[in-house]
């Protein structure tokens, strides 16, 4: 069973090794990190029955034997489906949703409690940035707040389940009707997002990237939010209009944001490239992290287990899990 671990996730030796360690089937594995290494890519794709990758490009060489494209990510937005050969099953992975839900709750707590500012000032010896013993201003809390989740899927349900213990109200908006709304009290159709946004103290972007969600959160919708609203983006950067968000934050038209997904990413030539062409890192009301909300040891373990399980199921001719589509 020829399997190619490909690209910056699948083709990273640490990742392919960790996945292979969880498989029981005999797998003839090859590993290719560099997608532009055409000399190696042509023969590897010519042979492969399985490719483990989160990327499939339009101009990839032919892969006539390919049957399973197994992503190591949840989103398949980097997979060019029309250019896949016929009869290929595309599977994704889950297991990230619990980790991301933890991140979402952590950032909304940190924002309300002004944790980063108060801790940094106190590290410098200043007591009075916080209330209490320091006699400074009080901070906020999340008790009684309304959390709106845009894109109410696995992540949204995990967030909702955790918020209820904090005395929050959770509402959501989703493109398709939601059968299991979990701990949320109300789910709006995505077309009625504009009715939901004004209610929210926190807006969590947990949608997939697609035609309906690209630049969904634009200047107009940022304007519908409360002036104190806190936006958490763990979906994809392109769901939010970059310049509109920057301006809303800079002019304090919304309260703040936690941003984990970015409009641009580092490259080998520029490993410390900023995530935006705009200086979000100069804004005090932004919590920023490098696309790591799901990068927990637990999520990695669950994801790799899902990939390994599918490789074994494929080898045994069993039904695959996490099937997104078949070409």
């Amino acid at each position, binding site marked *: 069973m020829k399997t190619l671990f490909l690209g910056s996730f699948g083709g990273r030796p640490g990742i392919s090794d960790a996945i292979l360690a969880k498989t029981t089937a005999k797998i003839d594995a090859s590993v290719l990190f560099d997608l532009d290494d055409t000399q190696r890519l042509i023969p590897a794709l010519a042979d492969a029955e399985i490719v483990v990758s989160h990327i499939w490009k339009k101009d990839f060489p032919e892969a006539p034997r390919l049957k399973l494209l197994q992503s190591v990510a949840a989103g398949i937005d980097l997979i060019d489906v029309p250019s896949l050969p016929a009869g290929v099953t595309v599977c994704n992975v889950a297991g990230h949703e619990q980790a991301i839900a933890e991140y979402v709750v952590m950032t909304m707590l940190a924002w309300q409690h002004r944790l980063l500012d108060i801790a940094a000032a106190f590290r410098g010896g200043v007591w009075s940035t*916080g209330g209490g013993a320091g006699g400074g201003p009080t901070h906020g809390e999340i008790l009684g707040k309304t959390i709106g989740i845009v894109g109410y899927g696995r992540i949204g349900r995990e967030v909702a389940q955790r918020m209820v213990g904090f005395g929050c109200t959770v509402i959501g908006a989703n493109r398709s009707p939601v059968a299991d709304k979990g701990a949320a009290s109300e789910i709006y159709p995505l077309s009625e997002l504009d009715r939901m946004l004004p209610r929210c103290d926190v807006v969590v972007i947990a949608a997939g990237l697609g035609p309906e969600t690209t630049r969904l959160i634009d200047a107009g919708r940022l304007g519908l939010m409360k002036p104190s609203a806190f936006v958490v983006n763990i979906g994809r950067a392109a769901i939010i209009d970059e310049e509109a968000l920057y301006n809303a934050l800079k002019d304090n038209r919304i309260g703040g944001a936690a941003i984990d997904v970015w409009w641009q990413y580092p490259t080998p030539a520029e490993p410390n490239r900023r995530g935006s062409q705009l200086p979000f890192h100069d804004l005090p009301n932004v919590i920023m992290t490098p696309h790591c909300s799901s990068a927990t040891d637990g999520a990695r373990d669950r994801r790799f287990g899902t990939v390994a399980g599918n490789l074994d199921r494929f080898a045994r001719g069993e039904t695959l899990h996490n099937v997104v589509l078949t070409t």
Partner: protein
Amino acid sequence: MKALFLGNVAADTFAGIEGELPPGLDSVVIADPQELAGSPAAAADADILVSNQWRADFPPAPRLRLVQSVATGIDLVDLAALPAGATVCNAFGHETAIAEFIVMAMLALHHRFFEIAGEFRERGSWRSSWVESGVPHGEVRGSTLGIVGYGRVGREVARRAAPFGVRILAANRTPRDAEPGVERVFPLADLDRMLPLCDTVALCTALGPETTGLIDARRLHLVKPGAFLINISRGQVIDEDAVYAALRDRTIGGAALDVWWQYPDAAEPNRRGSRHPFHELPNVIVTPHNSGWTGGMVRRRWDEIADNINRFARGDKLINVVTTI
């Protein structure tokens, strides 16, 4: 009927609840307790004292019947200096805010939040990113939280932490039933059996003879290697030297410390909270004793205090009674 609001917090409280006080209540506000000596009548005439402190060297207050603390702890109230018949009440409203702080700190420690967010903002470091396949950080799901002191705060912590898939243990001086989501409540005497099971230990206990120095060098070695310690109770519950050494040497993974061994005073407003440089350790989240100090907490506490003063004026049963002298 006369009331004396004494001290800064009491002065703020008066401003917040003035409109809710009983009609006809004659209130005197003295923000600086040092000035009480110059106004002995304010003490002599008061039926109600609203404050966080009372000392033997204050002017006599023989008429006091209600001593309403503006805090939960009454360690600054000298009970022996109060007249017989005075009922001492305290105030709450902080427990949900502190529970939020504890869950937040637990998440931030496991997720390496300060390190990752700090280096990304300062120098655009992506090394912890999924994209770069950096060293993964932890998550709280599947970890074990030990709550030392299963009272109002501890119960609120458990309610919030359980939906994360955290296994929750607790230890308490007096026997308490475990609420749903809490696996077991150990007697405090069996703390040494609970600690080795814990990935996170949250100290929510009051300060007393049994808890002073409770977390010493020996117990810091009982927790799992890499475990995190969160203290919102009182500094003295932890041995200052031992915890500094454990954090510096990474015997434990990290800590979030909100309460301290020493506090600022007028002469030294930026006095450090410890004689050791905890502020230089990267694995410690330090906050200035403000975990419960939310706008919501202040409002809830004011409401309780106003309610009690009205109850006293009507002759109704008081709430939050600590003791009657």
